[in-house]
């Protein structure tokens, strides 16, 4: 099957071949088939719009690949506003020499992820750069979604008394990506939790529209998002160590590497700040959804210690949680 050549990105015959032979078959839809430089459609609603670039290394990891992240990540960013994701764009920057077989595998994953999330890729672009000017493959996806319910979901909208809910166990993506690099193996393999959360958010909003904030704890983990919430809304947040779900394998891996699961990235989880009277109903709805089975209420929004996140430890003590500074590096000390 061969490798990507510079000519594949120059707009000529090889570029067309690449699109017709690989991209179109996977992303087949009436918009793309027109092969125009843009997609044209009507929207009669409040619109949410987002963009993200994906540069993860390794590009293939237990539970997924860069393609899964590229679709799910953007679907999730839209969902975190309470928007129903509709249309995505996908821009690819390929390094000269990148194996076409691997490109195909990534495209197949993207198709599967897009189908699951009920979104379509309506426009795209591919460029090829000289060897060494990009690390294998970079993907940018932008997305448009519509907000049909009367919601105002934003990090600066937390209200005192809100319950903080997490949709499942933390740390799986970050650990999965590190597995090969750190020579870790598992009794039960840790897979990335990458997943589209739009159906989960839709179920939550059906249970109650009193959801004040939503975010997916990707880079920097749960701790960083809570700190962002606290600062943005100028409130205090209290969370309880014994309520935070962490799988044994993730705990074990974190113990070995000297990492704190609170700061490890997730790609298929969300944190919600919910009006207290609605919290139980929202939790119940979450647990009925495939991606919210292990959802838990882990804390609440407080009037005191504004801008500060406090963790109540298992033994009854208190600890301040700050956001991640730089990367978490494996430690021996």
């Amino acid at each position, binding site marked *: 099957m061969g490798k990507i050549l510079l000519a594949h990105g120059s707009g000529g015959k090889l570029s067309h071949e690449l699109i017709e032979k690989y991209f179109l078959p996977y992303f087949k839809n009436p918009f793309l088939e027109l092969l125009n430089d843009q997609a044209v459609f009507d929207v009669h609603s409040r619109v949410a719009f987002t963009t993200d670039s994906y540069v993860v290394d390794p590009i293939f990891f237990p539970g997924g690949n860069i393609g899964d992240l590229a679709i799910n990540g953007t679907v999730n960013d839209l969902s975190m506003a309470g928007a129903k994701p509709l249309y995505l764009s996908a821009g690819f920057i390929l390094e000269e020499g990148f194996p076409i077989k691997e490109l195909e595998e990534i495209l197949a994953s993207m198709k599967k992820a897009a189908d699951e999330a009920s979104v379509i890729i309506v426009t795209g672009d591919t460029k090829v750069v000289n060897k060494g000017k990009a690390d294998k493959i970079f993907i940018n996806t932008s997305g448009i979604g519509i907000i049909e319910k009367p919601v105002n979901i934003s990090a600066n909208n937390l209200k005192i008394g809100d319950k903080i809910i997490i949709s499942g166990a933390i740390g799986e993506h970050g650990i999965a990506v590190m597995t090969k690099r750190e020579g870790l193996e598992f009794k039960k393999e840790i897979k990335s939790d990458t997943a589209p959360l739009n159906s989960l958010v839709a179920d939550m909003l059906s249970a109650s529209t009193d959801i004040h904030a939503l975010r997916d704890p990707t880079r920097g983990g749960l701790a960083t998002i809570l700190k962002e919430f606290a600062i943005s809304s100028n409130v205090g947040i209290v969370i309880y160590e014994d309520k935070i779900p962490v799988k044994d394998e993730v705990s074990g891996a974190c113990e070995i*590497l000297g990492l704190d699961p609170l700061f490890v990235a997730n790609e298929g989880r969300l944190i919600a700040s919910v009006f207290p009277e609605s919290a139980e109903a929202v939790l119940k709805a979450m647990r009925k959804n495939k991606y919210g089975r292990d959802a838990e209420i882990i804390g609440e929004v407080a009037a005191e210690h504004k801008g*500060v996140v406090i963790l109540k*430890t298992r*033994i*009854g003590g*208190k*600890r301040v949680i700050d956001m991640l500074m730089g990367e978490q*590096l494996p430690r021996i*000390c």
Partner: protein
Amino acid sequence: MRFIDEFRESEYAKAIVDKIHYISRKNVKLMEVCGTHTVAIFKSGIRGLLPAAIKLISGPGCPVCVTPMTDIDKAIALARQKDVIFTTFGDMMRVPGSLGTLQKKKADEGLDIRIVYSPLDALKIARDNKDKKVAFFSAGFETTTPAIAATVFQAHMDGLSNFFILPVNKTVPPAIKALLDTAELGLDGFICPGHVSVLIGSNAYKFIAEKYKRSAVISGFEPVDILLSIYMLIKQIEEKDARVEIEYKRAVTPEGNKKAMGIMWDVFEPCDADWRGIGVIPESGLRLTKKYEMFDAVKHFGINVPAVEDKTSCNCGDILRGLKEPPECRLFGKVCTPENPVGPCMVSEEGSCSAYYRFGANG
């Protein structure tokens, strides 16, 4: 997780806290020597649970924090050598030398600097890259040094000629002695480092009780271990009884791990060492013995860096010796933060200043 979960049980923790409150009368100053204990204490919020009469002071037991700027400069000089792959524990990446950190130099100059979890990883890199030279930043106390010694021993047995170490290892008992010789400190007892003690044995601390008449308890690292150790120390102090006790009985014995220490003393021998923020402590450092000299990176590459004097108004020296607390340093939280650390205590994640800043004053 076995042998971990039992020592995180909130029921046991609360019971010990109650008992501590029950027996505590005197104002007492305890030092946790080990940086990993400092972090553990902050992470579980132990300070806030203790009676006001008990003051916990963080000590200099952070091998990263006490690495002088010159040693970081040597590391950077090594990483810059042609065909060198420089390997290090993650802990050392953000320590500032006079030219910057290993992390920054890696980014700015494209140096081949790799983080390893174990010296064995560095050895493997050497085996897999025979055309390159691999240097390992050998840092740590007696918990880590035997592991490094075993790796050097292995390299020697295998006749590996492209593996070197930059030794900045130090030992703990001389540092504790130096602290006890600092009269102003007024320490009543020591929470001794559990894993260093696995190697050196509790007998190594006899001098604390016998010569200096202070209490010492060797502690594990889970919250219940630390609380139990504090309880044991308070009990000793209230009963005016200065002894060396082991709380971490499941791992520490009076003699320690003789096999491991034997390997360490075959590969390394004592020398004087400069502790950043404190100064030179005699016989507290380690260098390679003649038999293993060929593994010394500084000798092999002829590394020569100018001595650097630390001229900041940083109070780390006083903080490391327990004379001041982080907020008392003028630079703390203003000029000196974890993102822009000035002194060693803010650099390492388990430095007092860093822990204080990140986890909060009320611990």
